[in-house]
């Protein structure tokens, strides 16, 4: 299906206006030896054919039934109100570019301003950018911000081992270019906050934690910010936005930067992307933020309006000295999150968070009753939110294969993939989409592998 609209006649009129005979003649600057390669690609498909082909392709996936999935670990099946996709499907939104012409971009600008506002309230922070690629890159940019604040005087990032392993990997990749920077703290997978605090020193730019952490547990954050600030470092907190419907926001316990992946806010899992990087900070850092910021102002007639602001931080103005190289971000996902948050509202988000809490606890209690299964063996006393660890009486891959093949259930995440000490440990996620019946089915299915 070609989307080139030109008719023969138009083409020849245009070529005549330009003064060349054929379209091929427009490419004389291209060295002849490489010009017009014969690409080996499948032949063009019509719309009818491509849909049929894609349906065949998608049929090669196991068809996941969200309420029978207990896989989380950073990407979740949460409730997505239909209105979110209704909004996202508006052509004026999704076919637009960044809001360089504010007068015809007030729709997206206001929506992003409101997104920023809701993120600030949810995290209890002063300022939010208009989105980052995803949670992991937002975290990496937060680490860079901390190093930037330290202005070369501090080069150590203390990174909790209870931060999502892929996020830790991305932070490491991002710091590869920052020669002096070192990352410590996560060498020992079992290190707790007390141990991490001991690593804080004059060379520390930031402490990075996740709360609820990768294992779903609430960290004992009392006094943490004070300790970090006392060392002159920043506290960076990676969080779960759904949990903030119920749990104390990082801003309230002194975080300097709060980052999160916003996929849970109305965005489909989509095999891991596109997701949404949430990035919120204190006003003190506003000029060091990466990404777009939308600000309120007035027009020539004193009417309220919105613009991209503080562009002097950004690459297209500041170039080599920009706070970040980010250009394209995840605006449409921010719009999804804004729609989601305004639809759910104060009560809806709280209720969703409560459902996650109670259902995951029900699942944990029931699984814990099975012989050979242990819940949160490493930290049985920590409160948890929607995910918990189960030590299984058999390898995770075997258990998951059984769940899937015999029961159509997608089991939890195999923690042994990242940490050999956690062999036979599974991270189970339970959200508001899992019904009691589906939890009971999981428990019964696990019972079949109980020892």
């Amino acid at each position, binding site marked *: 299906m070609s*989307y*080139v609209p030109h008719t023969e006649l138009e083409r020849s009129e245009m070529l005549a206006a330009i003064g060349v005979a054929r379209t091929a003649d427009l490419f004389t600057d291209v060295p002849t030896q490489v010009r017009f390669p014969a690409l080996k690609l499948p032949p063009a498909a019509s719309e009818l054919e491509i849909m049929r082909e894609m349906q065949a392709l998608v049929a090669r996936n196991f068809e996941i039934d969200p309420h029978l999935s207990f*896989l989380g670990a950073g990407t979740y099946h949460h409730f997505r109100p239909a209105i979110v996709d209704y909004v996202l499907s508006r052509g004026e939104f*999704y076919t637009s570019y960044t809001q360089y012409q504010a007068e015809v971009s007030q729709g997206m600008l206001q929506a992003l301003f409101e997104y920023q506002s809701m993120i600030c309230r*949810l995290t209890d922070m002063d300022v939010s950018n208009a989105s980052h690629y995803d949670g992991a890159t937002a975290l990496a940019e937060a680490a860079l911000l901390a190093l930037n604040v330290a202005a070369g005087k501090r080069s150590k990032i203390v990174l909790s081992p209870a931060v999502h392993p892929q996020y830790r990997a991305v932070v490491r990749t991002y710091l590869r270019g920052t020669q002096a920077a070192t990352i410590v703290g996560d060498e020992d997978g079992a290190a707790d906050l007390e141990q991490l605090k001991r690593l804080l020193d004059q060379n520390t730019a930031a402490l990075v934690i996740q709360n609820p952490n990768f294992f779903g547990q609430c960290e004992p954050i009392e006094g943490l910010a004070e300790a970090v600030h006392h060392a002159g470092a920043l506290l960076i907190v990676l969080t779960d936005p759904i949990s903030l419907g119920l749990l104390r926001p990082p801003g309230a316990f002194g975080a300097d930067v709060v980052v999160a992946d916003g996929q849970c806010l109305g965005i489909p899992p989509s095999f891991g992307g596109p997701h949404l990087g949430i990035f919120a900070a204190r006003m003190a850092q506003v000029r060091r933020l990466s990404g777009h910021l939308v600000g309120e102002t007035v027009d020539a007639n004193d009417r309220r309006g919105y*613009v991209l602001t503080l562009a002097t931080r950004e690459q297209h103005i500041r170039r080599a000295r920009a706070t970040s190289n980010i250009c394209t971000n995840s605006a449409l996902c921010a719009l999804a999150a804004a729609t989601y948050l305004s639809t759910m509202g104060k009560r809806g988000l709280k209720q969703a968070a*409560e459902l996650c809490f109670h259902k995951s606890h029900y699942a944990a209690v029931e699984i814990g009753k099975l012989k050979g299964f242990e819940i949160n063996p490493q930290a049985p006393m920590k409160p948890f939110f929607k995910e918990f660890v189960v030590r299984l009486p058999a390898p995770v891959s075997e258990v998951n294969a059984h769940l899937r093949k015999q029961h159509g259930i*997608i089991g939890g995440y195999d923690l042994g993939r990242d940490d050999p000490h956690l062999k036979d440990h599974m991270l189970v996620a339970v959200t508001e989409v899992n019904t009691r019946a589906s939890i009971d089915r999981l428990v019964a299915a696990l019972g079949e592998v109980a020892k």
Partner: protein
Amino acid sequence: MIGHKIPTVYERSVSGRCGVTLPALDVPEAPLPAAELRTDCGLPELSQLDVARHYLLLSQRNFGVDSGFYPLGSCTMKFNPKINEQIARLPGFAESHPLQDPDTVQGNLALMFELQQWLAEIGGFASVSLQPAAGAQGEFTGLLMMRAYHRKRGDMKRTRILIPDSAHGTNPASTTMAGFTAVELPSDARGNVDLEAVRAACDDTVAGIMITNPNTLGLFEEHIGEVVRLAHACGGLVYGDGANMNALAGIARPGDLGFDVMHYNLHKTFSTPHGGGGPGSGPIGVSARLKEFLPGPVVEYMRDANGARYVSAMPAESIGQVSTFYGNFGMLVRAYAYIRQQGAEGLRKNSEHAVLNANYLRVKLRDTFAVPFDRPNMHEFVCRGAIDGTGVRALDVSKRLLDYGFHPPTNYFPLIVPEALMIEPTETEAKPTLDAFIEAMQAIAKEAVNDPALVKGAPHETPVKRLDEVKAARELKLCDQVKTATNS
């Protein structure tokens, strides 16, 4: 309408309102951890109808490709096929979880594998990773790979990246992030990077050159072969900024020109929608010598005792992950569907017509708006937007275009052309639209002479007039309401 201002979600909020009902709790309540709770998460309270109206009204104040002609240079605002939106929403794709057992996502992995192959074929590269989330991240990734490549060879002194002064801002910004120093190269009188400057800069501290071809003037670099040779000769690598690949797909392969590494912007060349700023996708292609440094996971096809299947793998010397999971898969689906609908011929046809449209606009407009580097261009061209003697500047012309129902071109970029208007029509626009745009531009040029205040005061027909950017930056209101005490 008289009630002009659209209230914000907070202004619409009424305590006690709610837009959803969730399922009732069907399990016993567990005791909540009292110390960890908050009482008010600070979100607004709207009905679902409020939400529907709010975003519908907002959308009507936003301009997309589907609203009209959008010749925003360097951004490739082409038609976003509607079928691709339907495809990406197929539940089998949308609901799939990145941490599922690979055996349960063979459809996704097959799609990624083929897309890797196709992009490699289109760009002339040995291998492709689909990880980067956008062009800028592709650049950063590529630069980290160049760094790793030199280090692997024990070549530690290469700290400089050469970048033409016409380059996009992400190029130097990514360079800094990757721990290099950006060295700016001047352009020559024909809009090429100055060959002498390249020659002079090339030494054993050069990690590589970052080059955009066609460059941001829309011009094919006339000495590209020599530039590549010089970079390679001093031990450097050649990074291609693939943002303008939509002029080259099916026309020339950067790999064949000697490029070592390049990102693709799927949201430009391959029609995935820009979404008001993102998400995009910036896969990276490399020549054989950089293959093992690619970020992962990449998808491989494997045949063993358990049969043939797709698996995800980490290249041996990988610089690591640059984002979680598999990159922006939803965008990969759309790009796959697009390439599959184009085929080799379609891709070439697209490039040809993008270039045809841009040249047509250039020759039609150049008498009114001077084109500093006036030679056959590729998919876009840059003209001077100021109207001499009237005080009307490129920005004014842009704003006046809004009144005519057109989105303006890119303003004031590239930096090397004063008062630049960078015009990229894309191939999906037909001649009547281009002619209407030409007419509007000419009408504005006349208005600038006859009634400059009209143009300088533009736009007149938009929901708001020009906005006070200075006030926005000085008084910084980035959030609808001050933080409230309830909020913890």
